[in-house]
């Protein structure tokens, strides 16, 4: 096939434009999934019941609950109040970018932040146990900021 020069350029430009828009889409996708270092997507989230997400996410080195996390935990508390025979384990986790021992403590602190919040919404301490896995059980294997943000989490798991 023979192209004249302008056709050739046109093809090059359009390939370029396609590539660029793909990049932009990818960047936008990541942006929409992390806000202020906290994962806001739903890729890894499971549900304890319809509309009750099982996990909350944290910023790097933090155990502060975000507005979204508190909303999730209020839903969990409501669900727990309705299902008073169910006990839960809160599993605290950290990402892989920290020393192992400190991350064990950090995971414990995160799970307890979630526990405290459930307790202020009327869930008895007896129904909640806590375990930290530190950085030992990532849900996402990647070594990138998005993966790390999914791994900084506290997951509420049915104990019985």
């Amino acid at each position, binding site marked *: 096939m023979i192209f004249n020069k302008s056709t050739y350029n046109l093809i090059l430009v359009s390939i370029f434009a396609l590539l660029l828009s793909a990049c932009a889409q990818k960047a936008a996708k990541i942006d929409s999934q992390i806000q202020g270092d906290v994962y806001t997507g739903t890729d890894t989230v499971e549900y304890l019941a319809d509309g009750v997400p099982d996990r909350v996410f944290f910023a790097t080195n933090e155990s502060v609950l975000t507005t979204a996390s508190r909303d999730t935990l209020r839903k969990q508390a409501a669900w727990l109040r309705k299902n008073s025979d169910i006990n839960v384990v809160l599993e605290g986790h950290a990402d892989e*970018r*920290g*020393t192992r021992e400190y991350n064990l*403590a*950090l995971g414990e602190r995160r*799970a307890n932040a979630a526990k405290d919040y459930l307790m202020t919404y009327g869930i008895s301490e007896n129904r909640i146990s806590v*375990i*930290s896995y530190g950085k030992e059980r990532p849900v*996402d*294997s990647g070594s990138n900021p998005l993966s790390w943000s999914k791994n900084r989490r506290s997951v509420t798991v049915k104990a019985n």
Partner: protein
Amino acid sequence: MKIIKIITLLLFITFPSKIYALIEVDITRGNLNPLPIAVSALYSDKETTETLKKELKINQIGEEISIVIENNLKATGLFNPLEKKAFLQKPDVAHLKPRFEDWSLIKAQALITGKVEFKDDKVRVEFRLWDVLAAREMLALAFTTVPNNWRRIGHIISDKIYERLTGEKGYFDTRIIYVSEAGPKTQRVKKLAIMDQDGFNTKYLTLGNELVLTPRFNPTNQMVTYLSYFKNLPRVYLLDIETGIQEVVGDFPGMTFAPRFSPDGKKIIMSFAKDGNSDIYTMDLENRIVERITNHPSIDTSPSYSPDGKFITFNSDRSGYQQIYVMKSDGSKVKRVSFGNGLYGTPVWSPRGDLIAFTKLHKGKFYIGVMRTDGTGERLLTENYYQEAPSWSPNGRVLIFYRETKSDSEGKGFSAKLWSIDLTGYNERQVITETDASDPSWSSLLSN
């Protein structure tokens, strides 16, 4: 350990005299000109060779021991073992009376010769260290042990040579306990493993049914304290290596972690996490008395005693971020010592008492470094994508740690390996393990 008793120091042919010693190896700086050393195969007569060949399944006992010594010396970066092919003298003749001209011709400055004999079900190994230029013997020793211990003999000889030439104790007759790893990142299977310092004689101490982390030896190397998730309750355990008996340390209503022995081996110091707050506790292994050492709403973890037992260095985020602190062993006089940029973790007090090794995280990079115990004189030895948890060689000259590699979104490319580096910042090398490995802890010298 029983093995140590079997090894007896039989004779001390010459007393090493420091007055005339010509060869000196300086271990305080990175060594760009390692000392050329000739390690002759140890001589063994035909009968000994054949018997041990059958019993140990090795070709030539004397040569095998000399290779253990060679590899040990080479790994220090301080010595350059010369090619055996270039040796002119036969092992038996060299051991009796070296022709020093022949050895200086191949540029050897030191020479090691020896002899192995098999008698009454024991092996007797003798060796001599010669100063080639001064044309004299520097050291001569002999050991007797059961044949199975032949590699240890090689390590003990290496220690004696290292000590004679550097003036400091060696670290070859030692073991490393670590966590062996396998499987995908999201479901990593971890087992306790123990091996000789040079990577041989690996044994697995747990089966991998539960997650295990951070094993550390007691001062006599018979016990190990570590974290196990047995029955999904993360607790500090104690394991007797010979009997395999394990027990939980203390009766804590929550996670205990980051354990280490006190220098006298009588206590375990660790963190106990409750209600989102980790503090440091000790438990006396004789009377089971538990003492709380820190009491602060922040995370206090990774405690490590000074060798005299008077101080403890630990990791705390009480300033807002992970930093290194030092306090008296009763918990009083807490003082922050790390003030550089970045986060600091995993402090470990050196066996000499003068330094604290640590992990530093700064601008997305991980460093292994050392500082004086008051925090001054910080030196970063190595930078990488991820590495942490240094552990000191018993002579305080080398650090072993683990390093992880980056993975793609499927977890491909991930690995965890052991590495060592000299205190000088030179001689960084991978410590070969059968599987992926992390959380290494170096024993003290086994024969002492």
